[in-house]
């Protein structure tokens, strides 16, 4: 365990260094973008902005300053947003985790169930139906699915709010707050979850079909075990190992895939913050985001490793 956590440190440092260098290689600077959006300026104005942003310092000094601050828990100041990076990210972290976590849960639950059903009825109409739907969802661009759902459930049948995190008025108690957040969460989670559920369906089906023909399953059948027990304990458990690997690998893409859903549903998450930070060349914020999402991905993979040990007794963690 300890060794695994120690391994994370150089990974994160390299991540930070790479992001910082890449950003500084990109042409254009933050001061110019800000001046441009303000409808122009003069030389003194621009020089003021540059020195405020520390852009007039040599690049290694800028990085050293940043690295030192990160170690002391200070991710710097976003001049663009007039706020500490830690506060900015902190406010967005919970919505992102809520969205991606729920979407992941929905995707895994639906994907595994549908995949198991399809595998159990391989070649029959149930299999074709499930595989067909999965393929259709997989082929639909995420934003299109999101907008379609929004227009149907938010405008035509106004059952659900069309976007945002929580109703902006009429919230008096903690319960109302939670209820409102849950209502706002439905459409983004369904959109994001559906895409991954489609992938997991295909994946579960394939993995289970492979295991169905293995010897231990035939033995289980020969012993006269109930079909449901065979599916759950002998097939599903084995099939879930490669599935969990895929989920771990996709954790990063789930976080970045959230950008689209966050944009369509005005969800105040990290993805949108990152997108805006790139557009605005907000170095401090971007580096902070790279660090945060990098840490998240590394942590998720740590969880995946732990899950292996739970699911497969042959695996032990050192």
């Amino acid at each position, binding site marked *: 365990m300890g060794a695994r956590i120690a391994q994370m440190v150089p990974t994160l440092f390299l991540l930070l260094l790479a992001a910082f260098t890449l950003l500084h290689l*990109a*042409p*254009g*600077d*933050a001061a*110019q*973008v*800000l*001046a*441009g*959006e*303000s*409808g*122009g*300026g*003069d*030389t*003194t*104005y*621009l020089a*003021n902005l540059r020195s*405020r942003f520390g852009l007039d310092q040599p690049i290694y000094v800028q990085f050293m300053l940043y690295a030192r601050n990160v170690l002391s828990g200070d991710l710097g*100041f976003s*001049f*663009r*947003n*007039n*706020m500490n990076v830690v506060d*900015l990210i902190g*406010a*967005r972290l919970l*919505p992102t985790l809520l969205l991606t976590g729920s979407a992941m849960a929905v995707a895994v639950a639906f994907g595994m169930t549908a995949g198991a059903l399809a595998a159990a009825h391989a070649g029959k109409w149930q299999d074709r139906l499930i595989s067909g739907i999965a393929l259709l969802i997989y082929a639909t661009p995420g*934003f299109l699915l999101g*907008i379609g759902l*929004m*227009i149907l459930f*938010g*405008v035509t049948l*106004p059952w659900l*709010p*069309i*976007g*945002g*995190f*929580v109703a*902006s*008025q009429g919230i008096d108690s903690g319960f109302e707050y939670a209820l409102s957040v849950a209502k706002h969460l439905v459409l983004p989670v369904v959109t994001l979850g559906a895409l991954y559920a489609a992938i997991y369906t295909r994946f579960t089906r394939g993995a289970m079909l492979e295991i169905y023909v293995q010897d231990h399953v035939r033995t289980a059948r020969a012993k006269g075990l109930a079909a449901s027990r065979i599916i759950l304990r002998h097939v599903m458990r084995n099939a879930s190992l490669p599935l969990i690997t895929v989920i771990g690998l996709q954790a990063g893409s789930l976080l970045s895939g959230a950008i689209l859903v966050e*944009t*369509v*549903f*005005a969800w*105040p*998450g990290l993805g*949108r*913050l990152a997108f*805006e930070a790139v*557009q605005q*060349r907000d170095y401090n914020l971007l580096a902070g985001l790279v660090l945060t999402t990098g840490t998240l991905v590394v942590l998720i993979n740590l969880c995946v490793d732990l899950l292996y040990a739970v699911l497969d007794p042959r695996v032990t963690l050192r």
Partner: protein
Amino acid sequence: MSNPRTSILKLRRRTFLAGAAASLVLAGRSFADAPVRGGTVVALAHPGEPNVLTSAVVQTGQVQSVSSKIFDGLITFGDNFEIKPELATKWTTSEDGKELRFDLRPGVRWHDGTPFTSADVKFTFESVWMKIHPRARATFAAVDVVETPDPLTVVFKLRNPSGVILGALNGLESTILPKHLYENTDIQTNPYNIKPVGTGPFRFKEWVRGDRIVLERNPDYWDAGKPYLDQVIYRVIPDATARYAAFESGAVQYGTLTPISLSDLGLAQKSDTLDVDFHGYEWLASAIVADFNVRRPPFNDVRVRRAVAHAIDLKAFVRVTTRGLAKPGTSPVLSTQTKFYAGEGLPEYTFDRAVADQLLDEAGYPKKPDGTRFATTIDWLPFGETFQRFAEFARQAFKAVGIEATIRNQDLPQFFRRVYSENDFDFTISHRAGLGDPQIGIDRVIWSKAILKDIPWSNGSGYSSPEMDKLIEAAHVAPNEDKRVELYKQIQVLAQRDIPTFTLAENKQFTVSSKKLRGLGTGSISVYDSLKDAWLEA
């Protein structure tokens, strides 16, 4: 099943309601138009989430939209650029034009209760506008000193008469900050930039990043009885279709600066619940422009620039690229800026490919055997895909007269660097804001002293003409407004003759609002209306 008592009650209630409705009808429009107090308006933070909430520090559209509810200016604009009092009740210009005196409104308080005085104006002028505002040093160049003989009087002492100053003292271009909260601080990182304290009809309540900004009624507002609304909530909705869905579902009631895509505009105009208004953008004066790099061939030759102007069919341009919404450009000063617009006498570039061909031949770019004359590039301002459409239209127009153009795509920082830092371009499709006064909006693209390295929206063309400089500098010190207007008319004619920048179209931006939202401002700057007169129909 039904209880007889209830049904009698119901009947009574119905009769009563019918009676009430009848009396409403009798009372007529005057009753229905009387403002109702209370209610919350949900508005769009557009074109994105602001980064601070005071336009004294940052002047982007999204900041100004919110800032204009919280801050007042010394003056504001009514219809047709009529200057109206706001924090100043009266102003006088001395006989020689070298002194501008303002009487301030008595009894005005900042949202924290501190009285607003002339010291706030003097402080903001010296420590904010002249230090960190992108345009103020040019606008207020004539100001020698600002004096405050008493708490309710501000005097601008000028080196020479300067007509640009009065109008520039509106709350958007020259936002006044509270001295007691900003003195001896770093203005740009002052914490009050994100929890502003102003004097306006609404005060800041909370800001949840990425989601909403909540403003509430200022109970102590100087215009007693106003505002009518309890709250204004700004919501951030990044996706254009989602924004339209938000209007359609009633989740949002107010959005400015073209809040929905043009493909949804028709739906909004036909809607029973929404209003679309094109007024209030006159001060902003948004234009789609083509800028030539006059430093190097081929566009260093005015004949080539004129040939291009003749080769682009502006009527077709606005029809094809903006669905007929914009108006073909005729001058760097837009026709909506009625006071300064020259109208007659402006050189016109009628769409005529034969004339363009002839000019190009004369300039020494004959058609080669393959039908082309020379190759060039088009860089478009990455303010959304509409600018790419403009660039594609220009490319086709170029092709018809033998100019082979390559369109280059890049993001905003790269565009700025290419045009304003490296000057490595031939032709750009870009945007220009007129900002109410040509001295603020137009000088910067045609004055040789506005050729400023690295500065976005400066004279990127590199156009420098002694004749033009003379006219501009005369306008800056014009003894009276009539003379200044006259000079700016000559400046337009010359700019249109030399065309370092070619105004392709006058942009028509619009506001979308719920029909229930009444009392929206109508003045020349009402895109940034303070909403103090706005009210919600019950």
